[in-house]
Every structure is written in C-alpha cells, then in structure tokens.
C-alpha cells in the first residue's frame, strides 16, 4: 500500500534534505475566481487530491507544471511544486474544489 508520508520522507532523504515542517495546506476555490497564486519559496507543496480537481486545471510553478487530465485521475503519485505556484481552474466548472497540499519546509 502506497503511504504518502513514508514516500515523502524517503524522497527527501534521498535528496539529502531535512524537513523542518510538514503540514497540510489548503486552497479554497470559489466562483468567479479562476486563478490563485501561492508563494512557496524555499519550500515544497505536494498535491494530494489531484483526483478531485476538474479536468483541465493547471498548476504551474517554478519547478514543475501539471495539467489535470483523465489519465491522471487514477494515479497515486504526489506532484511537487515550489517557488511561485499558480493554480488556474478551467472555465465553466460547477463545483469549486478545495485543493490540498502537504507543505514541506526544508532546512
């Protein structure tokens, strides 16, 4: 069974990074706003609920970019973002999701 937290610790151990803080961070989206920006400089945001995001949602950051597709729905992997993180929701969605990340602050 894939355990997110074990995976995260293994990942950062491989990269020789020590974790100062690990916690959940959420972005609550609402109608009429399609673009959100989060500053995640010197830290990482790991997307945990890609499966509930509307198809076509784009998350663009300084280190990684992602577009939510149907193929992504079945995957368990955690996408990692850092730097300035922009979330762009597609036009014409009915349900505005809460986007959840695990925030990792490195030493």
């Amino acid at each position: 069974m894939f355990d997110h937290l074990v995976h995260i610790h293994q990942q950062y151990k491989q990269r020789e990074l020590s974790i100062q803080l690990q916690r959940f961070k959420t972005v609550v989206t609402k109608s009429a706003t399609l673009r959100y920006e989060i500053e995640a400089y010197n830290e990482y945001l790991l997307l945990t609920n890609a499966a509930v995001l509307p198809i076509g949602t784009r998350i663009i950051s300084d280190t990684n970019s992602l577009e939510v597709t149907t193929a992504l729905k079945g995957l368990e992997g955690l996408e990692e973002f850092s730097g300035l993180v922009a979330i762009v929701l597609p036009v014409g969605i009915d349900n505005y999701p809460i986007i959840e990340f695990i925030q990792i602050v490195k030493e």
Partner: protein
Amino acid sequence: MGVTRYNIIRLQVDRPGQIIRFQHKVPTYLKRCTGFKAVHVRGIGTDLYVPEIGWFTASFNSLKEEAIVTPVSAQAFYEPEETHEFQSLDVLLLQGQLVVGVYLDTCPSNLFAPYIVSLYLRCTDSNEIKQVTSNNPVPPIEQKVQPDAKEDETEDCSCPNPMDEDDEYEEESNPDQLCSII
C-alpha cells in the same frame, strides 16, 4: 584543463499550453556543468521578436539542485539576432544522476505552430571552476596608458591595478571610484 561537452535536450511541442517533462542522464565522466542555453530551434515563424514562447525548468543531481528556470524566445524570421552566449551555471555533478525538468508552452495562440526547442547544457570533465563564462572572451585591458590630452576621453577607461607593485599608483580623493578616465 578539461574537455567541454554539450548535452542537448530537444523537445517537440505539438499543442498550445503543452507541458512536457523530460529527464536526461549526463555522462558520468562529466563533473561540472558551467553553462546553459535554451533556444527555439524551428517551427514558429514570426516577423517580430517574441520574448517568451515557453519556459524551461530543470534540476540537477536527481532533484537535489534546482538550477534552471529560463524563458525561451522566438527570433524574428527576417532579422534573427542570433546569440551564442551561454548563461552561466555552476553545478557540481554527482555521478549517475538525472537532470529532470519541465517545459511549459506559453506561446501566444495566434502565433502557435508545432515547434522544437532545445536546452543545451555545457559541461566539463574538470572540477575546476572556470573564470570565463562567455564564449566571446574579453581582450585584456592594458594596464599602462600613456597620458595624452588629445585622446578621446569617452572611448576608453583604463584602471591601474593598485595591487601591482610596479605601478606607482596613488589613490585619489575619491576612493570609491573604481575606474577613472586617464
């Protein structure tokens, strides 16, 4: 003095807004990357310079070192201002690890056509830090210039080296002045 090798990561962009992930293994004999250049190779024809058609991000040593975030521009078709300058980089490479990154297309939709971009990595098998990062080395500045009142004062700016014992250099009234016209 080590040898320099260029690693090329070439990507084909087929649709607007496309996100392309890549990973590349740098040969293990290369020890250090000293420069990079991100270029549009072909595909987008434009009469005007487009400063940004996309972005490269890349990290070295299997995600241990985030080193590159750079835009890619498209040159005007008729008057390309080709530059062969590499941007400086100083990454010590660990053996057998990956360069991992993403290319994100941001080309204006009215210009978009399928195109190819390349990321060039300049790497060396030497561990020494290279001082000159440009491909066009600057000729050395002459240290001693004969004073000549007729000389055009706006053309040249030479600084006597205060560390050079042979020169009789005296610090003038403004010690912050790094260079004075002689």
